[in-house]
């Protein structure tokens, strides 16, 4: 036998002085790190993913989880990660699974972009004293407005009046340009979904249903939910299409462009099976392509079919992964009846993706936004379709930068999960999430308090919204539409000329 275990990533330690043997950690750890043996807690560090549930729950603060320092001979090419992956794959013969976003050290452009503020020549605006408008409309806009003049009789006098002739297609009205990304029920627990739904309703924004259909319990919030149609078509029927605020066709996902999805059978419980409309316990597999979309005109047809099915009352979005020719694809989408294009950058989160895809396929969202916005402007259609950006947006500053680069609004996913308790341990695909987020196990799901979760998610959105207002005020802008595509208010720091060109911004100092 060739021993194939690799050293555990983390080392769990219990301060035996402090420990009172309450057994809480044994109960809380869904990964089986702890076992109680008479008057001692036995630790299996190799099972630990540093989700910190035990650390947080231990009444005596007795637990520390540290990075395991077992030494590998260092080598610049044969990194620890590479060696571990090879050992694992030679054992299993399988594709390596992973979760959350791209974990490689590609540049994070958001962190190389700085913002502008007013000094002297024009006054900053104080959001506490002046109105600061973040309201955003997502959907098709006309290129221009047309008026007609009608003669009316008012008190015996004939007067002409301008009346609006142009009909505006239905748009989503957002009170803040932050929406919650599509994360399916099935991948996430019902409690997680409910918490997010309550939060978006409170904040005047929207969440995505994800591709797993919509649980009945979410129906009361449906006017704040964008229902997703992905290649698996889970849970899609005419009610599902009509109940939401908008529909999103998912072509691809930033974490795994070019492949479909896979929800393991263990997560397909009775409830999930009903919502997804598939048999209980079977794997839910979304194929890589939509089997009715093999070209752009097929997509245009699907957009139109969905519009017809909803009597042209619902905006239809199309989500694509940010890949090399994202601009051209987005342009194709813009010329269909679609109302918005969603671009998901390569740092987009996921519950489960082959590691090789997560870490190597796709391009950064910052550059994708810049490229799409620029291309749509060249084609003269930018203002007619909305751009929603997602994938690795971590703070209000990222939101601000994304909008200044050219997005109308953003989707946030991982940040919302963190608000719900997630510690980004990256094992969502196992269905064991100790925080009750990425799991269907009732005892785990029950750990997530819906009301409290809703409050925390709403807090997060509100806090970012406040910060956006402050940043806008400092930039001397009092309406978000004056920030959109306003790359003049951004500067790059430490970027080379090619990167600056791709982002369409100047370097600091110019």
């Amino acid at each position, binding site marked *: 036998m060739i021993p194939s275990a690799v050293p555990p990533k983390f080392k769990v330690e219990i301060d035996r002085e402090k420990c009172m043997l309450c057994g809480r950690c044994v109960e809380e750890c869904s990964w089986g790190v702890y076992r109680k043996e008479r008057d001692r807690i036995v630790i299996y560090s190799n099972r630990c993913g540093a989700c910190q549930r035990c650390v947080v729950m231990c009444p005596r603060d007795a637990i520390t989880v540290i990075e395991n320092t077992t030494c590998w001979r260092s080598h610049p090419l044969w990194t620890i990660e590479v060696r571990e992956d090879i050992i694992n794959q030679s054992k299993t013969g399988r594709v390596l699974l992973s979760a959350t976003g791209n974990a490689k050290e590609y540049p994070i452009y958001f962190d190389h972009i700085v913002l502008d503020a007013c000094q002297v020549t024009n006054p900053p605006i104080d959001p506490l004293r002046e109105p600061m*408008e973040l309201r955003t409309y997502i959907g098709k806009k006309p290129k221009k407005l047309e*008026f007609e003049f009608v003669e009316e009789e008012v008190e015996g006098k004939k007067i002409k009046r301008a009346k609006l002739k142009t009909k505006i297609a239905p748009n989503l009205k957002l009170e803040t340009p932050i929406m919650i990304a599509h994360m399916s029920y099935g991948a996430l627990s019902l409690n997680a979904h409910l918490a997010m739904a309550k939060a978006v309703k409170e904040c005047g924004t929207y969440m995505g249903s994800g591709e797993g259909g919509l649980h009945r319990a979410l129906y009361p919030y449906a006017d704040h939910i964008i229902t997703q149609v992905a290649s698996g078509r889970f849970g899609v029927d005419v009610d599902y299409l009509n109940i939401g605020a908008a529909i999103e066709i998912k072509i691809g996902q930033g974490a795994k462009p070019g492949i479909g999805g896979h929800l393991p059978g263990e997560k397909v419980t009775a409830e999930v099976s009903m919502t997804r409309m598939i048999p209980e316990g079977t794997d839910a597999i979304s194929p890589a392509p939509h089997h009715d979309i093999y070209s752009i005109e097929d997509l245009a047809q699907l957009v139109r079919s969905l519009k017809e099915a909803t009597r042209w009352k619902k905006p239809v979005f199309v989500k694509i992964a940010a890949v090399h020719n994202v601009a051209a694809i987005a342009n194709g989408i813009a010329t269909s009846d679609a109302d918005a294009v969603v671009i998901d950058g390569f740092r987009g989160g996921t519950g489960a993706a082959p590691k090789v895809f997560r870490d190597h396929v796709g391009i950064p969202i910052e550059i994708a936004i810049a490229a799409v916005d620029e291309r749509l*402007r060249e084609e003269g259609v930018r203002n007619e379709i909305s751009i929603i950006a997602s994938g690795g947006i971590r703070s209000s500053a990222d939101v601000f930068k994304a909008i200044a680069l050219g997005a109308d609004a953003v989707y946030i996913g991982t940040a919302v999960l963190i608000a719900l308790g997630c510690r980004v341990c990256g094992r969502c695909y196992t269905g064991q999430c100790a925080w009750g987020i990425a799991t269907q196990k009732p005892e785990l799901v029950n750990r997530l308090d819906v009301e409290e979760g809703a409050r925390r998610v709403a807090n997060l959105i509100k806090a970012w919204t406040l910060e956006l207002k402050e940043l806008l005020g400092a930039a001397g802008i009092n*309406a978000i*539409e*004056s*920030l959109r595509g306003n790359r003049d208010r951004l500067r790059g720091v430490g970027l080379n000329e090619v990167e600056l060109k791709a982002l369409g911004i100047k370097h600091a100092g110019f």
Partner: protein
Amino acid sequence: MCGIIGFISRKKRMIKGDKIAIALDSLKERGNGQGSGYVGYGIYPDYADCYALHVFLRNTPTYHKIIDRVKSILGLYGVVVKDEEIPVKEGVLKKEFIPWRFFYRFHDSYRDMENDLMVNIVMEINDKVDGAFVFSSGKNLGVFKATGWPMEVAEFYRLEEYEGYMWLGHARYPTNTRGWWGGAHPFNILNWSVVHNGEITSYGTNKRYVESFGYKCRMYTDTEVVAYIFDLLIRKHRLPVEYALSAMAPKFWDEIDRMEEEERRIHEAIRITYGPAALNGPFAIIVGTHEGMVFMNGEIEENNTLIGLTDRVKLRPLVAAEKDDLVFVSSEEAAIRRICPDLDKVEMPDAGTPIIVRLE
């Protein structure tokens, strides 16, 4: 911060250009001598049906080559009726550029689209002809601007020799871009002329918006874009003037939400459709307009009018005053009183509420 003033005679009475210079001179405090300029409407009655192109030519011994290149572009669509150096008083300013004017008429076959073509010609010259900048392209009007104090610029261009029924003036204190002749106000395209006090914080958004309609911002300053937005919204899209101005200084959502249904729908549509045309940041502008503007009540204005507008929270001053047939708009009452001490009426328009003065 800059000083701005404009006046118009509602009876189309002709007034000499030195008047506006005297008024502007009292706004020296708001400038720093790095740019002053004027525009007079009605100053070329002998060439009233020609486009009067004022062009800065880089002052080099071979500037005639630049003229030839400009002429070769103009020659494609019409004839240059006359061209000459704009008369100047030598020795007043350092002549960075030679100001030249072309009186130009389109061939008959282009008559229906001459305004659109003229916009394209201006964009093409500014973009492609090295050393030439068109800074005035309307009919029967002319912009005169340079780096210098208000009085110097007026003297340089011999403003007292022109008569017009509407004049705008601007004393610049450059903040966002270096002072150069082309960066002085007014900015003009066709019959639109804009003088502007303030800084447009939405410039990047506005610029990219108008560029997607073929305008090219080459003057490196934010006021240029205002002129293009006026042209786009009012002339090309034919929005009723009141609504176009509301697109530029939008009503707050709070106000819109409280409006009655039809009005609410209109203002919502304006903000949704023309969001990128909204001018943000502190500004007060005075605009000389293009004829043919449509008003909310269906009236079409055949003449040039004067519009004054501030941003929606009024972070820059603007006062309006009247005396007989004259209406004045300025950043300071003092400037108005300098040329017309005894006024019938003085008022301060509300934030975002336009002043529109039409001819009788």
